[in-house]
């Protein structure tokens, strides 16, 4: 159970009362606007209390909020979308969706990780955890973008790659490794948006890009906090502690140079204005695609190489100075 849902309950209750009062107030002789204003002020206060400053662990829950917009919500906001299926080898992994799309005058290829919005969809989509077939579909569609000389936009939202028996038997490592190779050198402009949870190599497989954007309350981490706590301390229940250590928030990652731009969310999270968030994200994507058109392919590829080449933090004992980042 997501603890944010519990904390949102009081807010939703207040919202309902304000709405009730408003509709009761219309056409009434007694003016209740003073009561409404007072409730509204209480509401704003509560909203700031609940969501004003989120801890890293709370941001993880925000990123996993069941009502947070998912890849398909952004895809629904595109001007057109034609889905393309399958890895041409074994199956169509529903945890990754992709296809041709139009956005703000650009024809693009869009690919995203799709978690479920309820239990039924989560079961169908394996909680957004891709199998090797999903990564091979993504790789195929990325190469299709290159073949048709179209920019590539990816939406990142996964706890991580599927850790199951079949995924191992079908070479999960190879699938992710091959996807990284394709994204690192794809000969078209590329843009990735972390819209929810970016979990480990399974997220990175779709996230090497010329520009990486991240929604304010999304998280992006070397391992899920539960996984990290299990690896380091043999105790997944210490996930909140791990989340605090991992530096997985958008502002942390902007500081490291891993994320290029943070897209603000409404107070209380993207789901409190889902339509507005989708529009804002798609507008930014369109604007950045405009911007990337100004670069030659050679410049784009050189800049992409240099961006990842610089990432890391080390001491240089010979030069006596600290490494990049």
């Amino acid at each position, binding site marked *: 159970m997501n603890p944010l849902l519990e904390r949102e309950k009081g807010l939703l209750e207040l919202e309902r009362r304000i709405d009730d009062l408003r509709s009761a107030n219309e056409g009434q002789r007694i003016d209740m606007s003073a009561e409404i204003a007072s409730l509204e002020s209480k509401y704003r206060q509560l909203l700031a209390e609940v969501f004003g400053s989120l801890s890293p662990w709370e941001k993880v829950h925000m990123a996993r909020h069941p009502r947070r917009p998912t890849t398909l919500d952004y895809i629904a906001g595109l001007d057109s979308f034609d889905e393309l299926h399958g890895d041409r080898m074994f199956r169509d992994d529903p945890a990754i969706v992709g296809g041709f799309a139009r956005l703000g005058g650009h024809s693009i290829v869009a690919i995203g990780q799709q978690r479920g919005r309820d239990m039924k969809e989560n079961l169908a989509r394996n909680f957004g955890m891709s199998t090797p077939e999903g990564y091979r579909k993504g790789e195929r569609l990325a190469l299709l973008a290159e073949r048709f000389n179209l920019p590539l936009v990816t939406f990142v939202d996964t706890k991580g790659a599927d850790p199951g*028996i079949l995924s191992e038997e079908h070479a999960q490592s190879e699938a992710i490794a*091959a996807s*990284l190779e394709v994204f690192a050198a794809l000969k078209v402009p590329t843009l990735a948006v972390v819209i929810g949870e970016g979990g480990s*190599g399974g997220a990175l497989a779709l996230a090497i890009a010329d520009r990486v954007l991240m929604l304010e309350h999304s998280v992006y981490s070397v391992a899920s906090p539960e996984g990290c706590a*299990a690896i380091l301390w043999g105790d997944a229940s210490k996930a909140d502690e791990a989340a605090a250590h991992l530096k997985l928030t958008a502002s942390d990652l902007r500081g490291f140079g891993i994320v290029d731009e943070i897209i603000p969310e409404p107070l209380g999270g993207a789901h409190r204005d889902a339509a507005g968030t989708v529009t804002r994200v798609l507008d930014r994507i369109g604007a950045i695609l405009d911007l990337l058109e100004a670069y030659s392919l050679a410049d784009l590829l050189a800049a992409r190489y240099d961006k*990842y080449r610089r990432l*890391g933090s*080390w001491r240089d004992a010979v030069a006596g100075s600290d490494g990049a980042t």
Partner: protein
Amino acid sequence: MPMADWLRGGRNREKMRDDAAQWVKCPSCGEVLYRPDLSANLDVCSRCSHHFRMHAHDRILSLVDGDFEEIARGVLPADPLAWSDKKSYPQKLAADAAKSGMDEAVLCGFGRIGGYDLALGVMDFHFRGGTMGSVVGERLTRLIEAATDRGLPCVIFTASGGARMEEGMLALMQMAKTTAAVVRLKASAQPFVTVLTDPTTGGVSASFAFQADIILAERNAMIGFAGRRVIEQTIRQRLPDRFQTAEFLLERGHIDGVLDRPNVKPTLERILGYARAGVQRRQRAELSA
């Protein structure tokens, strides 16, 4: 640097004079082995052929003919997340350095194997479980770039538990960084070969380990993306013993071959020979064109 001098600067062998440390029990068959004999046998049990995890210095010594010119040894770990749990990250690094004689989880440099010059990287599980942080990523990237620039084959021995948690996303990004370098190497004529040793998992298996032109593995090495424990917890059942072994991966078509340790060097020599023949053929074609 002459091999003898390089080793002196490397692993501390003095500890081994301690009598108790002279005998090792094979975890597979229980045989008690005399350590100098074990070392002479490439850390392979003389009774059951169990492959012990090799230290990087010993591995290089067993592979390289003549000198080894180490690169990027000045690249040393920092503490970008100011990580501290039971111990601070710098304390963990210091403890592993004292225990393993390594200053990080990989050694990189130039050497010669059977007449072939090459760029060689060797990971060491004894330092932080071979995990990849910024130093492993930077040293390997410099190695791969140097191979590309100098026109040398690149061979990497992997041994890794994956990305290093204590460096967070900067560790994950080393997958992207090494990948970008591998793509450039593979656009050249030179071969990229990996030898997966026990264990090779997570962010290392899901990046350069499985990006090589030729992927070999040592006998019985554990190789996979997700760790065994994670999978067992997810599916709530015990996995078969052979799952994720080198032999299992060979059957499934994921790797080119499984080798006993004594066969690794001669096999590498032959592969480097095939690749050089291709390079020379290309050069001849360019000359006559």
